[in-house]
């Protein structure tokens, strides 16, 4: 039995210790907003935050989470930064198919949390681990800058 705090709620899950957090969230807890894209930390679709830090949940063994608080896209709107990011995403019509955007939003809100006024190269460093197959990159960049000003 493994204890987790997900989106402010304490949970206990009966799963193998090496099971990636992604599948605990999706298949056990039922939070499907966090997406599966590659399984090898190359695409960022599975990005969640541990104590505000972005991590790739597809390669993160659930037993290694420990007491760190897990935040997923379902709850990121409850943070001031997350809400601004979501709003900027809608205002600038960033989204196309939307599948990668959970991870993009989690990476972007973590960036703004630690760097309220990111430069282009800050955005490169924080966002290049998140692939978007629809190619919404230019709008992601613009939306991060807008959220920073909001």
């Amino acid at each position, binding site marked *: *039995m493994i204890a987790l705090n997900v989106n402010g709620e304490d*949970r*206990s899950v*009966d*799963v*193998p210790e090496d*099971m*990636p957090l992604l*599948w605990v969230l*999706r*298949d*056990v*807890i*039922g*939070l*499907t*907003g966090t*997406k*599966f*894209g*590659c*399984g*090898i*930390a*190359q*695409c960022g*679709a599975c990005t969640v935050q541990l104590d505000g830090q972005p991590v*790739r949940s597809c390669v993160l063994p659930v037993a290694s989470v420990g007491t760190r608080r897990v935040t*997923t*896209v*379902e709850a990121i*709107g409850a943070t001031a930064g997350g809400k601004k990011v*979501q709003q900027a*995403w*809608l205002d600038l*019509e960033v*989204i*196309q*198919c*939307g*599948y*990668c*955007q*959970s991870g993009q*939003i989690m990476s972007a809100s973590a960036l703004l949390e630690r760097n309220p006024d990111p430069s282009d*190269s800050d955005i*490169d*460093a*924080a966002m*290049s*681990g998140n*692939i978007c*197959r*629809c*190619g*919404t*990159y*230019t*709008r992601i*960049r613009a939306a991060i800058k807008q959220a920073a000003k909001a």
Partner: protein
Amino acid sequence: MSKPFSSPKTGPFPETGASRRAFLQGGGLLLGFALLGAGVKPTLAATEPVAGDVTAAFSPDAFIRIGTDGKITLILPNIEMGQGTHTGEATLIAEELEVGLDQVSVVDAPPNDKLYATAALGGQATGGSTSMRATWESLRKAGATARMMLVAAAAAQWSVPVSECGAKLGLVTHQPTGRQLAYGALADAAGKEPVPADVKLKNPSDFELIGKSLRRVDTAGKVNGAVIYGIDVRVPDMKVATVSACPVLGGTLQDVDEKAARAIPGVRDIVRLPNAVAVIGDHFWAAKKGLEALDITWNDGANAKLGSADIMAALKTASEHKTPIMARKEGDVEGRLKAASKTVEATYQLPFLAHAPMEPINCVVHVRADECEIWVGTQVPTQAQAGAAQVTGFPLNKIIVHNHLIGGAFGRRLVAESVAQAVAIAKQVSYPVKVIWTREEDIQHDLYRPAYYDRISAGLGPDGLPTVWIDHVAGGSVLGNYIPGGWPDDKLDDDAVEGAIKPPYDLPVIQVDWVRQDPPVPITWWRGVGSTHNVFVVESFMDELAHAAGKDPVEYRRALTKNQPRAAGVLELVAEKSGWGTPLPAGSGRGIALHDAFGSYMAAVLEISVSSAGEITLHRAVVAVDCGIAINPNTVEAQIEGGLIFGLSAALYSGITFTNGRVDQSNFHDYRILRNNEAPKIEVYHVKSLESPGGIGETATVSAAPVLANAIFAATGKRLRSLPFDRNQLKSDGADKTSVSMMPPLSVPVLAALATSEETGESEPEAA
């Protein structure tokens, strides 16, 4: 504790057949119309389509439903996969219905080929950038018809002439008295009004919604994880499977030792198919660990020794020796060639490509005693249904397909073979199964964009302009995959020459032909279809001709578009906006590409720089588009930005290769996708147009490879004729030959380090 799939409270539940039926019933106004039949009068419908019901005799294929609660629902057969089609279609209806876009919701129509046959695609399908083009008139007429019935109902209730009443934002107003009635209150009465025979549509100058960048209707639930893609569907008692098909294309399963897999906690069942094996578990992780623990013996079959070099060699031989099928021949080709002052010829090669959408292939299936229920995102719901019927032996009306939002498809989900596989797996167990392919399975068992080998030549006159143009295309038939019984040997596959057969230039003496050489590899369409392939050849070669003639590439195209006003329009606009001809730093270059595809015209200019080590940096793209009336300019711009990046990604990195019948690439580390730090700035400019809307979802993908090839030539003087572009050919003399790799091992820290070092490295050229 939480158990898999035991907690409906925490997981959003998908709509079931029952809830969908309930949703679609109720009073009010229900107007059915023919999506592709602008000349067909809309009719009142007594019932709505029901998921899985293909026998009911509906004459309409799309519906506007106005409930007595005022809810306005549009039931439309085209699938949303990010391209904005639901927003566009809803805009056309709302414009004439006189409601705001925020007052309507859109739902997918259930599969029914009889009802939703998209003439352009020969079945219920979403692809080829056809949706907006096909429905431009019918959707507006339907909206106007419903509005007229609502107004008539209001006029009758007030006992006033219809001419004294107007509609706006879902309200009918009696102008002289200011009395108002909402559509919801009028819906029942409007449903009893006669359907008007004559419908007058607005003049484009009166449009209030069309042409405005209205907010998309499908995005609110995409910022908080609320929307349900196929992969997110959860049904009670569901288990999760993952599958491995024979790694050699066409091979079969010989034997499998299950012992180690069965010992893994959470593994439930192991299912064998003729060419694959699947492990079903309590969750994906158990299934994946189980699959990895299997000891599988494959029969490699006929492709055991197949390699990419063999496929390309066969294409080359076919191109040079097989008799082609003539696609177009006009004028005295042979005579002009003899008389030419100069001839230029070149050979171009294009690789197989995987689609690699972000959402891997998946499908939820429950096969019961006498029916089969499927939850999946597909571009071809009726094919999914037919495949399931074949596997289960059930009649079509016992196959219930729930279509879901798609996390990108780009042509991949124009084929439903993975649905049939999922049904074959689920058929062997009693409970519902969600089959999810790993990314590796998704890339190695795709149906690929075919490889091509094209020989092109031209004769130039004394002015340097082409007097004769000859394009020999060689590749497989994609259409053949969609025709029962295959494609006839002597028949032209139009897709193979799309983009080649009629370039937007004054080329009166022209020959375009096609040699068919089907590869021993499954193939299908890929974003931009025939044009993505052919325009790379046509526009690269046009640049070669300009160079051979000693002319500026824009000037050269200008001279060839004197009778092509729409092509000339985008060419001039892009030249102006890009600052064509202004100086760039050393090592930089600016390329241009011009084309028409899917009813839209586009010219693009790309600025790049190439380092001495051969690395390409994309700085700035400027695109001019004439897509007719832009229904939603912001969506047009988004599709151009995304489509261009999609094509640049392929041109820079993508190519599927084979060794011993196996696909060499497996995941995003070796089938690379362009990343945020590599994307250029993109500017889009519209040529104002009152032409009917052209397609836009794939248009910019077509521009990408040729505009990059031409920019590389401008920057380096080297002409690259094979995709993806080989950086080794771009190294300056003396550069370290080992310093550049097309597929660097990427990880997040590596990328972060790269991004940081770029910041302190040589200064970036200013993107004007």
